[in-house]
């Protein structure tokens, strides 16, 4: 039982990281209808920014956190302007392929700049794990779960209640109509990218605290898992992405712990197939009728 609880907590820790990255993914997809495959690599950019600031420049970590978030935002907005905006009216497959291109561009540039060898992420917290009976919960896990939950609630409020959030939903529903109603579409999309990338920046920080090793290809796998979480949760639905992120983390951890290490990814992707077979719009997604 203790072993089971411990594995459950491990799963929640991993899941919180998937959830955190999935939040940014699902925001961009829900509003711009673009699968931003470079999202995981923005996270990598944020991680390198944090490492360079903390190790090479000796900046304290709260400053480094804010600065690396700003770097992520700058990259995200610039990429949107240069790579995605000109393709907004092109068929969707074009922007998808461009996104893959941007992802490789970022990975290889990082490899050129920082070499393929992983760099260590400096220790930030040295707080011993919390122990309840035989169950131990590491501080990083607690922090990640908490931050992910708070951000999800905050973002949901922002999208549902604020003026910008309203504009985002309007753009998401019908870009042309929103433009006619006086919504600044370009500004709204830029804001969406900025928020999504800031989330990637926070995600990068928590990811690096949990797995203190920064490498050019570090964003690929979490990016893919977060993408699955976003799709399964119902694209554009923040609580859905969050929920599925956690489910995936726990499923992975329990498979590794009690069935087989080799099968864990198979189980995660198996869940993807099963859910999409029965509920193509995602776990929390509503089926949308095609408007004619």
């Amino acid at each position, binding site marked *: 039982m*203790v*072993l089971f609880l*411990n*594995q459950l907590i*491990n*799963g929640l*820790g*991993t899941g919180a990281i998937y959830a955190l990255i999935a939040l940014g993914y699902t925001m961009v997809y829900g509003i711009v209808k673009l699968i931003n495959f470079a999202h995981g690599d923005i996270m990598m950019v944020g991680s390198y920014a944090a490492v360079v600031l903390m190790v090479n420049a000796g900046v304290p970590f709260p400053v480094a956190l804010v600065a690396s978030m700003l770097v992520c935002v700058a990259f995200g907005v610039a990429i949107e302007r240069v790579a995605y905006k000109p393709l907004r009216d092109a068929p969707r497959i074009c922007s998808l392929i461009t996104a893959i291109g941007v992802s490789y561009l970022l990975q290889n540039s990082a490899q050129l700049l920082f070499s393929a*060898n*992983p*760099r*260590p*992420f*400096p*220790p930030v917290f*040295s707080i*011993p*794990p919390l*122990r309840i009976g035989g169950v*131990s919960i*590491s*501080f*990083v896990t607690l922090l990640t779960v908490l931050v992910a939950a708070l951000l999800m609630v905050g973002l949901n409020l922002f999208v549902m209640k604020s003026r910008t959030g309203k504009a985002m939903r309007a753009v998401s529903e019908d870009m042309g109509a929103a433009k006619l109603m006086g919504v600044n579409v370009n500004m709204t999309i830029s804001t969406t990218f900025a928020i999504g990338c800031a989330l990637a920046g926070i995600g990068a920080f928590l990811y690096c605290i*949990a*797995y*203190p*090793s920064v490498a050019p290809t*570090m964003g690929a*796998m979490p990016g893919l898992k977060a993408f699955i979480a976003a799709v399964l949760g119902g694209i554009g639905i923040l609580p859905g992405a969050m929920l599925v992120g956690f489910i995936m983390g726990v499923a*992975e*951890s329990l498979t*590794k*712990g009690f069935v*087989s*290490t*080799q099968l*864990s*990814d198979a189980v995660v992707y198996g869940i993807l197939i099963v859910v999409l077979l029965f509920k193509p719009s995602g776990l929390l997604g509503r089926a949308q009728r095609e408007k004619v």
Partner: protein
Amino acid sequence: MKKLVAVLVTLAMAVSFILPAMAEDTIKIGGIACLTGPAAMYGVGVKNGVDLYVSELNAAGGIDGKQVEVLWEDDEASADKAANAYNKLVQNDGVCAILGPVVSSATDAAADLAASDGIPLITASATAYYITTDRPSVFRTCFLDPFQGKVMAAFTAQELKATKVAAMYKNGDEYSVGLKDAFVTEAKALGLEVVAEEASADKDVDYKTQLTNIKDSGAEAIFLAYYGDVASLILTQANELGMDVMFTGGDGISNITDSISDKSLLTRMYYSDHFTNSADSEIVKAYLAGYQAMYGEMPSISFSATAYDAAKVLCGAIAAAGTTEPDAVVAAIKASSTEGVTGTITYDDHNDPIKSAFILTYDAQGNQVFVKQQDPQQ
């Protein structure tokens, strides 16, 4: 005038008789190494090690009063050039034995020829298993990767005094699985209880699940069949889980200082290597002093030490055989027990060395600390 010619002819004849006689007084050994190209660093290191031993041997009188001469050929780490170099050395220069080549593919080519000619060949650095398979005249002085698993099992039992051990490895990775299997087999043979064997997949970053299982199994020491980048993640996550265990590993661990952020965790990590400059035995100190005197710098790669030992094994065998006749030298190598800088070397049925490994750990600042030379249990 006629007399002068006669004298000159006599002299010339005398000289032509004397020259081969003088040549008989040197023992010629062929050296093949990648002295140029991308692997040149290893080739030059191997050449330096061999030349150092031979110059020391010659200064001390050589073998039975005969000086030893090593003729070097560059193979540029290519199999073709290694075969050409072998043919040139054996057929044109008439060497009695070969030291080298350096990389496994080149060594394979030269070893194939050496085996069919019955010429003794000792490589200091080729770690591929098949190099010595079914080639009775081919030997090496570096140990194979899985051998370190055996040594670390002995170390875990004797020095760490653990009774329950666990092993972690990467599925589908030859280095990792080989190392893990050797460790587990030897640990069981030594009476240790192997309570967990946990696999991971390529590019995994999360090892908490496996560590949680190991924690539950009550293991006191965990063998990590990984390179330093993964080992650093495992050490960090084990610390997060509050685990109080020791870690062991093979030479792959040696780059862990590049990737770990909390250096104090490294004091729990022990790993084996072919050689270390920080070992404190007399023979190692003498080797380092000799190297420093001859090349003006400390040896930077451990293969210089295994090359030094390769030359020592070969020259010792020639001395013991009392001849350079190939079969006798091969038999002498097989029966030899050489006290080299990398440990006392004897040979097993597969012509792989049985020798000690150097066990290393770190202090809290991440500086390498030499622990001991660990012999495998026989």
